[in-house]
């Protein structure tokens, strides 16, 4: 089974509810077959974005194109996009088979073809044994697969996924996340994947679009977003534990109008008072198994470092900090925009 992924273009898309802007001039281009994750905190407009693309709501301004065709005025049915909802939104009065068949049934596909396509999708997602059950008799993971199947069965031009993993428990989420990635590799369909979970976006997406207060902060590959964040907001949003965003003095650098952002893996912590580096004290030690997160206090600020699994020290223990001076990213304290590093004295 394969789906021809369509190109999706959003041009200056704006949506307001009364005087409240939900999206403010979002321009985004998704190539055919690409998986773009739209991330941001709740209320940033990412679900509104999906509703606009699906045709469930009309934009206040801006243009939506699918394969070059303007679809603003088209109904959801004419746009040929499928959507997986956060709550799955399975039809409770229908069996799994009927749920999967529903979009084809509505479209008037001949009965025999509906049967074969439902079987095909059921086989792909391992739903064959569940076809005659009702959604109420399914586990969370199974419901999620049915929701996915109901989208897949249509072979739509664009798939829209609205937080599809957020209702699964943590253990299941990793498995389904991996399945989704393999599925996308196999289908090469166009996916727009909305999530508030930056780890999901990092692992799944070809590119990530970071949305904040209805406007795009940055669009880039996961590596770009992580390594070259355009704003302090993006730097803080991705990465676990979060980036250390501090005044330069905390890192022993000359003061200025920009803050420095240093990833926890770029900060080295050595026990003991003696030696080179910046003096600090241990505040919290969190063993993660494969590594240990160490929070230290220095100059009234807290910094997190990812250390070896064997690191151990009581709170208050003196440590020395070191880092490569090339590593921090610099952000203007007023605008939050990325800046070139200040010239080091001498």
């Amino acid at each position, binding site marked *: 089974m394969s789906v021809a992924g369509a190109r999706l273009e959003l041009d200056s898309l704006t949506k307001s509810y009364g005087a409240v802007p939900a999206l403010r001039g979002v321009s985004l281009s998704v190539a055919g077959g690409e998986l773009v994750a739209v991330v941001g905190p709740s209320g940033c407009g990412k679900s509104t974005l999906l509703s606009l693309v699906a045709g469930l709501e009309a934009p206040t301004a801006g243009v939506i194109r699918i394969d070059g065709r303007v679809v603003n005025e088209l109904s959801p049915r004419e746009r040929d996009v499928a959507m997986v909802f956060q709550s799955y939104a399975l039809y409770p009065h229908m069996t799994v088979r009927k749920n999967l068949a529903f979009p084809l049934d509505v479209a008037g596909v001949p009965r025999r073809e509906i049967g074969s396509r439902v079987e095909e999708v059921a086989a792909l997602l391992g739903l064959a044994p569940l076809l005659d059950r009702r959604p109420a008799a399914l586990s969370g993971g199974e419901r999620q697969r049915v929701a996915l199947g109901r989208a897949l069965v*249509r072979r739509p031009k664009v798939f829209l996924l609205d937080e599809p993993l957020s209702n699964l428990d943590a253990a299941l989420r990793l498995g389904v996340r991996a399945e989704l990635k393999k599925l996308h590799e196999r289908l090469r369909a166009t996916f727009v994947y909305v999530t508030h979970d930056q780890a999901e976006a990092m692992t799944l997406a070809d590119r990530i679009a970071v949305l904040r207060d209805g406007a795009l902060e940055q669009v880039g590959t996961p590596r770009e977003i992580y390594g070259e964040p355009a704003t302090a907001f993006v730097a803080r949003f991705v990465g676990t534990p979060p980036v250390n965003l501090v005044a330069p003095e905390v890192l022993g650098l000359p003061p200025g109008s920009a803050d420095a952002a240093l990833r926890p893996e770029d900060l080295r912590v050595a026990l003991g008072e003696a030696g080179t580096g910046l003096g600090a004290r241990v505040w919290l030690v969190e063993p993660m198994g494969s590594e240990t997160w160490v929070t230290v206090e220095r100059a009234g600020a807290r910094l997190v470092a990812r250390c070896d699994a064997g690191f151990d020290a009581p709170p208050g223990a003196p440590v020395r900090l070191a880092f490569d001076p090339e590593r921090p990213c610099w952000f203007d304290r007023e605008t939050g925009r990325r800046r070139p590093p200040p010239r080091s004295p001498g």
Partner: protein
Amino acid sequence: MSPRAAWTVAVPYLAFFLLPLGWLALTSLWPDAELARALPSHLTLENHAAALAGGGLARAVVNSLLVSGATAALALALAAPAAFAIARLGVRGGRALLAAALAVSMFPPIATAAPLYVALRAARLLDTLPGLVLPYASFSLPLALWLLTGTFRALPAELYRAARVDGCTPLGAFRRVLLPVAAPGIATAGLLVFVFAWNELLYAVTFLTSPARRTVPVALALFGGEFRDPIVVLAAASTLATIPVVAVAVLFQRRVVSGLTAGAVKG
């Protein structure tokens, strides 16, 4: 609450509602000649046979079933799409419409009986069953509209959105997804409208003149005029007339209960 405590609450509560009915049923089984005694020496079905004699009561039950069924069907057919539009389509003035419906339902029926009489006469619907169904349906419409708006609001919004993305028109999503999912709430509204129509006396006695078109409340109200000392027979007639509506309620009970509780929890 322990089972014992539950029973101490439930028994008086049930007794309050069931004792009058039980007394009615017992009276209907009481031999006519023994009315003066504290308790009957035996029970009899003669009164029921007497109540059914002549076919007037059976006729009234059939009329009432027709009128109440048609009223419920008409009220639901009008209220369900309207409630869906108010709850899901963001219709302008939806709240005002609900408020207006509530206000209209506050009219005392007696105030409208005379104008309705004139209107029905003009429409040549006096003394016909459809002539009852129309005012009944319009009077029960506010109740149905309120109940069903609540029902549709309680359904997850994503269900409607999913149906739309899956290719349904708004009306298609209503018909194929929301209506079946809302079935418990619709059954509840339908049952309440049915019972309202079943019990209505004022319009029925005003608009119907032919004995053959009487509904159950009219037939029972006029029973006394036709029988000698009919207390036990009247009790038998009342008991018999209650059976169909109880049967309808029991038939819908499971759906109604789940409808009431679904609304209560998600409300």
